[in-house]
């Protein structure tokens, strides 16, 4: 599969107008390979989420070009799935109907949908909760639904905006492992925004470190930890080295701005 290439050239994103405008991204250039897991790390408020919104098509860049698979992004689409910071599920739909939504929008035949739903819901461990409403689920479970909802569409790009930020440490680790499983199976491009260095190193093939606002690309690190990764990676020397690197880079950005 050769889909899921992302190209950003000198992309700027500005919110508001006049004196109250905020420059979220400034001349950001970035190339993401098809099937790559790119972690995006930056100090809080650096425009990480804005980057996700732009690629998702929620916000149009003020300047620069943004291409996904060679096509200019001008609106949201099911080729770019988004897992939000908050699960953002439809409260009025059961777990199954939430996950089914994308399939129905793409007019997949009923019998085919049932097979896909059973498979995906099983994969993310939700088989027993298909008839629950989102508010009946814990945060981790809700985020599983959020993930499953995107997976049924088999997007070439999956955009994740601190999806595990509000989960407790144990749940988060489980979700990270689940995500790596899913990624190794589906091989989509993943952009994963986080402010958690451990998470970025544990998940990413590369880590893009952004500067504080206005967000620019500060540096890109290769993560050459072997896959499949498990908890053991977290205490390996290479992990520690990368973590120290990231901390140093982030500290430069937060000094005097904490």
């Amino acid at each position, binding site marked *: 599969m050769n889909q899921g290439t992302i190209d950003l050239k000198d992309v700027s994103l500005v919110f508001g107008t006049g004196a109250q405008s905020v420059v979220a991204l400034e001349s950001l250039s970035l190339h993401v390979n098809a099937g790559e897991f790119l972690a995006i790390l930056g100090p809080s408020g650096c425009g990480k989420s804005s980057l996700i919104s732009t690629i998702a098509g929620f916000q149009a860049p003020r300047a620069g070009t943004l291409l996904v698979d060679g096509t200019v992004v001008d609106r949201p689409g099911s080729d770019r799935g988004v897992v939000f910071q*908050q699960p953002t599920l439809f409260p009025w739909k059961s777990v199954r109907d939430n996950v089914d939504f994308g399939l129905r929008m793409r007019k997949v035949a009923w019998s085919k949908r049932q097979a896909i739903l059973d498979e995906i819901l099983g994969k993310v461990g939700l088989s027993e909760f298909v008839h629950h409403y989102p508010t009946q689920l814990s945060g981790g479970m809700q985020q599983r639904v959020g993930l499953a909802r995107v997976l049924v*569409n088999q997007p070439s790009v999956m955009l994740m905006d601190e999806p595990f930020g509000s989960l407790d440490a144990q749940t988060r680790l489980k979700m990270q492992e689940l995500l790596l499983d899913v990624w190794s199976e589906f091989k989509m491009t993943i952009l994963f925004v986080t402010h958690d260095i451990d998470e970025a190193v544990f998940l990413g093939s590369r880590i893009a470190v952004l500067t504080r606002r206005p967000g620019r690309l500060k540096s890109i690190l290769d993560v050459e930890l072997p896959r499949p990764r498990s908890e053991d990676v977290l205490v390996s020397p290479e992990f520690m080295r990368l973590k120290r690197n990231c901390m140093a880079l982030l500290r430069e950005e937060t000094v005097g701005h904490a």
Partner: protein
Amino acid sequence: MLANRRQARASVTFQAVPPAPNQASVTERWNGASVAGDDSAIVVSPSREPSRAYLTLVRRALVRALAALAFLGLWHLASTHKFKFIVSFSFVPTPADVLAAGLEFVRSSKTPQHVLSSLRRVLTGFALAAAMAIPLGLVIGRSRLLADIVMTPLEIIRPIPGVAWIPLAILMFPTPEQSMIFICLVGALFPILLSTIHGVENLDRRLIYAAQTLGARQWHIFTEVILPGALPSIVTGLTIGMGISWFLVVTAEMISGRFGVGYFTWESYTLQNYADIVVGMLAIGILGMGSSFVVRLLGRVLMPWHRHLVHAR
């Protein structure tokens, strides 16, 4: 089943009492009974000991029964002794008189026509108002241009109370029937419209974003995200609208009706059937309460998820 019915009745008795806290808790319990069978292991629901809950219910029922009795007793004393201080009870019938008149009213062959006339007026006006206000509100909530075009004239009309429309409505419509329906419509229109707009505007934008990234286009965003998202607010508007429609139909009937519970009440006054006045008032109250209850019930049926939302917050 028994508990279920008792709770249902408890929530009916509560409809007339506006304060929210009590009502909310009763509603929740009622819902709890109706949605049971959901084998949700991780639902966080307040679990009380059944026997203690039962005792509390019995005690509260007793207190309420005593309060009702005391009210009837005071009323009886006031009318038999022709109580007079600022208000006069000289012409106020006793509870027993009202009961007798009420039984008569229930048996009378004219009663169905009175009740059905009022019901038809209210429901027609209300249904028309809902059919206009909900789609309009959904669209206005999404389009600033449309909001400016449509809301400007409506904002001018809005402060005019429905009752003030009665003379003009009588002049504008060929039959009194139509004018009364129109008045019910006007009264219900604004609460439904404004609640719908409010519901759309307060919808979490990210839900629309989520729908878009899942491949939804305008139509499905409307029917599957905006409409259900605004539904709790719409149902609130419908409940308020229903109340106002009843208020207005009674007033309109007193002025231009041939039949109807409002007409019956006013006719009883002019014919000096004082017990019937109170019977008419009670009939109006019961019909209004029943209508609001039906709207609320409809809301619960349409929003099975809403109960869980309330729990989570």
